């Protein structure tokens, strides 16, 4: 039977997990949702973010989240460089759809294999005073290793949302895939706008990665588990809508936790692909798809 405390625990951890998923997916909501770039390597960058937080945390004892925030400028520049290569090699000549996908697929493997060669396949974890602690509200226990990522994720996605909707560059990012020439007629350079947006998306993975390694230990291939999830979230949201992305991430988080709790953890990975297929079949525009 489904007991009340098991149920409410599952809902709460599902919401916390979903919030974290939003942090992982927000960068993809920009690249895939707004720029039409199928960055399948996005979760791999999140893993790089985890390893970066781990290295800084174990060497200096700095809080993993602060470590993640600290390295965002470097991630931003890496993102800009990758977009430059992608643009010069594929987008400029109009070959981005298939060759571009292969490019990011390859990039994903290069990242994963490099991490394995350098750091091995052992699980890595970070230290912070709050990891292992939890607060109990009634019969619901909230572990800090879930609560801290949730709060940071809310701030991150909220910040990205405000940036996109309130700034000139942000609005140009929203416009660039809709009509490139029209954006040029506003005096903006679409390549520079896209390069900035891609840098921003990769910068978010530094923070998302630090959250991932707070939630649990990380090894190089963990990223693969997130490919289905993040794409499902962005598609369910309705390509590029940030509020929709948060709702979609919460839905996936809660459904996954429910399924894991009541049907067994081995069913959890099926949730995101199930949601992805269902969305494409029933409502391809997504929950919050404009148009």
């Amino acid at each position, binding site marked *: 039977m489904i007991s009340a405390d098991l149920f409410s625990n599952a809902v709460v951890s599902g919401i916390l997990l979903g919030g974290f998923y939003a942090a992982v997916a927000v960068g993809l909501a920009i690249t895939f949702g707004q720029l039409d770039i199928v960055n399948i390597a996005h979760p791999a960058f999140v893993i790089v973010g985890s390893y970066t937080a781990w290295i800084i945390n174990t060497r200096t004892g700095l809080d993993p989240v602060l470590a993640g925030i600290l390295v965002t400028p470097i991630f931003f520049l890496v993102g800009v460089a990758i977009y430059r290569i992608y643009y010069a090699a594929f987008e400029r000549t109009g070959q981005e759809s298939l060759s571009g996908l292969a490019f990011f697929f390859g990039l994903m493997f290069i990242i994963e294999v490099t991490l394995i060669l350098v750091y091995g396949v052992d699980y890595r974890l970070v230290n912070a005073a709050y990891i292992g602690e939890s607060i109990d509200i009634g019969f619901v226990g909230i572990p800090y290793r879930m609560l801290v990522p949730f709060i940071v994720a809310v701030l991150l996605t909220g910040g990205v949302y405000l940036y996109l909707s309130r700034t000139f560059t942000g609005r*140009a990012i929203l*416009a660039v895939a*809709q009509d490139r*020439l029209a954006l040029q*007629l*506003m*005096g*903006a350079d679409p390549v520079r706008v896209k390069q900035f947006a891609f840098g921003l998306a990769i910068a978010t993975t530094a923070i998302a990665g630090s959250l991932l390694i707070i939630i649990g230990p990380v090894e190089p291939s963990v990223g693969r588990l997130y490919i289905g999830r993040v794409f499902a979230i962005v598609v369910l949201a309705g390509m590029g809508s940030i509020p929709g992305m948060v709702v979609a991430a919460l839905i996936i988080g809660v459904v996954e936790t429910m399924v894991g709790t009541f049907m067994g953890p081995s069913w959890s990975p099926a949730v995101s692909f199930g949601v992805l297929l269902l969305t494409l079949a029933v409502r391809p525009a997504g929950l919050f798809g404009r*148009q």
Partner: protein
Amino acid sequence: MASSRLVVEGLEAGYGAVRVLHGVSINVEHGESVVLLGSNGNGKSTLIKCIMGIVPPTAGSIHFERDGERINLAGKSPQEIVGLGISLVPEGRRLFPALSVEENLLLGAYRAAARARLAENLAFVFEVFPALRERRRQLAGSMSGGEQQMVAVARALMTEPRILLIDEPSVGLAPILVIRMIAKIKELKERRNLTVLMAEQNFNQAIKIADRGYIIVHGEIAFEGRSAADLKNNDLVKQYYLGL
């Protein structure tokens, strides 16, 4: 004293093997409204696209004279040309359909010179087009053709242009809306002292805002009218537009 002048000389352009413009020379003086008349497929849009850097010319020159400075537009990108102070209301409007009216207008103020005058310009376009203020939260793609054309003109004004190019504002609009749109453009031109170059095939409407104009036939300037009356009394006009 601010002055803006556009000079096109001996322009040739085309798409692949198809030559569209054969040595076109036109000029637009400060504060003038010049209309480019001609039916479909005669090269009006191509000429406009060459000026904006969208289509590269194969020969000839395009110069923008700004406060005595003579700037060669050849090889410049559309965004650079907009940055110099030439804006386009494109054919087919080309709004950002999934953004709101207000977001479309704010994107018009992207360049630095336009950001500095954002509040003033936004108040101005809302005053000229009150319907846009009411509908500023509506998605641009969900509006009617006439409303979209208003957004397109308003968005171009937000870029703070010295010279405004308008390509076929009447396309896809009902006759009554064409009349209103032309009246609005005339109002804008008078209130803002805009320099305008408008390509249009609706002769009777275009003539209402024309200080002078050119008739373009098969990629060549077939007639240069030094005044609206001059255009009206021309044989080519009678032949092409009035069916006489």
